[in-house]
């Protein structure tokens, strides 16, 4: 692994949850990049090539929800790993691109961090 910190893109429309997620990810030693919806997330992904994981909410305003974003990212940037969190119970992992991880909200911070480290280890 290189010395550069792995970058994680947090996509969440709720400011407080996004702020805490950024804090959590930075606390775990990664670089956190923020987007408040899928469109913004895609603009960031088009500009930056160092994003390794997208950590997204599902229910967000804009042209795409987090599920569509997950599939879009999987198609367009296959190496990027995906972690999805939602309060919706109906969401099954089968609706997500293969290899992505799903967490029910409210999620446990430790579970998110261990998922991130597993995904980043597997990808490196």
């Amino acid at each position, binding site marked *: 692994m290189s010395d550069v910190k792995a970058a994680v893109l947090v996509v969440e429309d709720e400011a*407080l949850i996004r*702020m805490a997620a950024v804090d*959590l990810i930075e606390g775990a030693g990664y670089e956190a990049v923020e987007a408040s919806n899928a469109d913004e997330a895609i603009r960031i992904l088009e500009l930056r090539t160092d994003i390794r994981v997208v950590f997204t909410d599902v229910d967000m305003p804009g042209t795409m929800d987090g599920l569509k974003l997950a599939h879009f990212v999987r198609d367009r940037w296959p190496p990027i790993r995906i972690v999805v969190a939602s309060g*919706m119970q109906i969401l099954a992992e089968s609706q997500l691109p293969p290899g992505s991880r799903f967490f*029910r*909200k*409210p999620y446990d911070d430790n*579970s998110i961090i261990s998922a991130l480290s597993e995904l980043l280890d597997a990808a490196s």
Partner: protein
Amino acid sequence: MDAHDRFAASSALSLMLAVIATSETPLLLLSGDLEVVAVSRSFCVAFGLDSAAVQGRSVLEMGEGEWNLPQLGSLLAATASGATEVRAYELDFRQPNRDVRHLVLNAHRLDYDDKDRVRLLLAVADVTTARANEKLKDDLIRDKAVLLREVQHRIANSLQIIASVLLQSARRVQSEETRGHLKDAHSRVMSIASVQRQLAQSAEGDVLLQPYLTQLCASLGASMIEDPTRLSIQVAVDDCLVDSEKSISLGLIVTELVINALKHAFPDGRDGKITVRYHARGPNWTLSVSDNGVGMSADVNVAKPGLGTSIVEALASQLEAEVRLGNAAPGTTVEIVHKRLAVVHDAPAQAV
């Protein structure tokens, strides 16, 4: 045929016509070539026809031509020939100056003594209102389910905000004690979130205790146990349903007792396990949390009771239960015992 037979036959015919005429279900008796032999008053009222005007005419020529439906003609002809029967055939019936009605048709070729004279009985049910009501009911049920999902989604999101802010504060504060309090508060929020999750999966507002407490303890373990090879939480709970209010109280009690055991029972990297049990017998039940740790030391006993202790006592009293502290040797057991005096003659409830 003698006079008596003729009288009997004419009496039977008149009875049959009277039965058809008074039928509440709109009915038509048809000949083999689909001419109307008899019609019920209910049919005439439902479709605005005159009984005398339709008798002797083809069923397809009744009224202003609204019955001239090719599919009806072919179904009835097939029924008359004995090839098939019309069973619950549905059609949209259009009549001038009236809303479209949804009809369900049933037609049978009658099996009776006179093999040469074919007779069909056609029953017509107007299900327009019933179908509209069913659709309305389905729509309401769907709306309710959508609303409920939306509410559950918002609750989950709100709990996520609270949980996130608490843990973010915990990561930032300098004081180890304050950090502990913030983490405890986070565990309490997650405990309520667990119940919410179980409720979202149940239709009746009751919670299955076993999966609920299992999930709750897994979540407590994930956030509080740093080395899962050293400490574990086991759940041995009866298969039972409890209402949501009781489940929230039981969950919060378990949260407090497990947090307490994790904090005090295993100092200096000691190994161990915590066991959560719930056993019910009739209206009596016992919830217990035990550990195989160091046990209660004298100074813990005299120490000022913390918030956790107050929460457990308040919730136990709300559940009309008693808190019993015991030495498990090794370790500590706390039992929350609910007993109804009415069944005191029964064998006493015991924690398994």
